[in-house]
């Protein structure tokens, strides 16, 4: 028997495999395919203080080994989440994280305060890296002072696990990771999508209604693994790694680079059962390599 349990700065997860926000709905969308309780954790769709319609269609474009999205945080607001969705999903025996976004620091605070009251939500993922909204979002996450300010403010009102989701669209991701660690983030998750763009050449028009959008999928994996490794060498809090994970090998790559847990996003679209395959694949790998505890993989890359 191998141990798959990990500790996220005091919060135990039964295994290191989580789902990424915006790619797994509220878990319910995947109930036909897998048993949600088998997952280490799920991060539900980005939630804001108020209802948001999101961006106009078209919102996605396929790219080589990846996709662009410009959903723009479409959601019915935190109150709807609490009244309608939370009661339906709170029974999941997995770590449920709410991904919180906002246009102003006040928005973030107000949303986090409300979620703080929910018994079955052990943590939030502070989304300061959404590239698809005009105000807030990534604007917070690409500059250290604002990233620190919003984290600090939310830390004051939010008492449970505070994970901060970092943007890859920066010169130095370690600066921001250290900044949010300094003001009390319990963990960092990375990467959110890379800012990208595509043009329909025949129509000579942008592929997305918003012109630019967020790039995800295997194409971003090398950048994501590099950033996880850089952050691993810069901070002490646990890292949740993501960006292009398609199989157990990819997940292990992130752990070897320094991630304590991983999130799987776009791959869920290709194979709604991928998360379970990744968990099984990690077990197989551990057995094959004679590793009894998954924690041994964390930062386990051998440098000669």
């Amino acid at each position: 028997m191998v141990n798959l349990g990990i500790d996220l700065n005091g919060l135990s997860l039964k295994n290191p495999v989580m789902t990424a926000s915006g790619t797994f709905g509220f878990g319910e969308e995947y109930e036909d395919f897998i048993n949600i309780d088998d997952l280490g954790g799920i991060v539900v769709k980005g939630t804001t203080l108020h209802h948001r319609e999101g961006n106009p269609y078209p919102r996605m474009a396929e790219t080589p080994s990846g996709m662009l999205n410009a959903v723009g945080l479409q959601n019915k607001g935190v109150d709807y989440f609490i009244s309608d969705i939370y009661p339906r999903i709170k029974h999941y025996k997995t770590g449920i994280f709410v991904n919180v976004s906002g246009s102003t620091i006040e928005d973030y605070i107000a949303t986090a305060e409300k979620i703080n009251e929910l018994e079955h939500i052990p943590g939030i993922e502070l989304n300061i890296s959404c590239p698809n909204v005009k105000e807030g979002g990534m604007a917070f996450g690409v500059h250290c002072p604002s990233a620190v300010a919003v984290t600090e403010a939310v830390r004051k009102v939010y008492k449970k696990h505070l994970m901060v989701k970092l943007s890859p669209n920066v010169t130095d991701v370690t600066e921001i990771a250290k900044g949010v660690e300094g003001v009390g983030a319990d963990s960092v998750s990375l990467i959110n999508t890379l800012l990208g763009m595509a043009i329909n050449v025949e129509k000579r028009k942008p592929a997305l209604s918003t012109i630019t959008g967020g790039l995800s999928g295997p194409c971003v994996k090398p950048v994501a693994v590099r950033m996880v490794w850089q952050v691993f060498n810069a901070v002490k809090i646990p890292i949740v790694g993501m960006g292009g994970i398609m199989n157990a090998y990819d997940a292990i790559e992130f752990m070897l680079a320094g991630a304590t847990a991983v999130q799987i996003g776009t791959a869920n679209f290709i194979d709604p059962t991928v998360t379970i395959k990744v968990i099984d694949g990690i077990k197989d790998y551990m057995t094959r390599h004679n590793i009894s505890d998954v924690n041994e993989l964390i930062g386990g890359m051998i440098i000669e």
Partner: protein
Amino acid sequence: MKKVELLTVTKNRRINKEYVIIHAASNEKLPEIFPGQFVEIKVENGPNTFLRRPISIHEVDESKNEIILLIQEIGEGSRLLAKLREGDTIDLIYPLGNAFSIPSKGSKALLVGGGVGVAPMLILGRVLKENGVEPHFLLGARSKEILMELDNYEKIAEVGVTTEDGSLGIKGFVTDHPLMNEKLGEMEIVYTCGPDPMMRAVAKKAKEKDIKCEVSLENLMACGIGACLCCVVDTKDGHKCTCTEGPVFDTKELKEW
């Protein structure tokens, strides 16, 4: 219940230079499938076919547990699908989406398909007939060469045809056909699937005559199961997902239709 499953290709038949019809068999009893529903198919081995492709269910053969798909070769994904051979496996998520509504017994319905949009009309026609509704097909294409084989439709009901070059049926667009003009008033409902301008033209005519019109939209999809929120359409009720709340919509629900 949706599922992800490997099916086996039992037949892949080219019907003209643009279209193939693929039969794919499940090892299990097929789940209940409604007209208008679709599958998300994984295109193996394509460097530029990362996402699944949504394809309507053209027909089902319950006796063989087969799903039948009509595929138009348009880009890399569909070209690779068209190359599938008997015995190959394909990875499907299905059945997805809502379904066309079935009007009351004895009523008449017009089924307007343009190009590959004829795909869901075959299963719809059959099911309507089984439910005591009188279907009328109206199929449009650029030219006779790329029109579907009409036999299967004709087995179910009368088939009106338009071609843009006049090589078969009425010359012009579907909206130029008598079924869309003189006969439209008799219909309880008009269903349409095809290119956006065609569907809008059909919807407009239906609206003028105050006839219920259901369209099947082909929005770009990433997940097909309501998780990504990429496939939205603007409705009077805000953004709705084409993959779960559609692909079939009553045009009355839609904004700017």
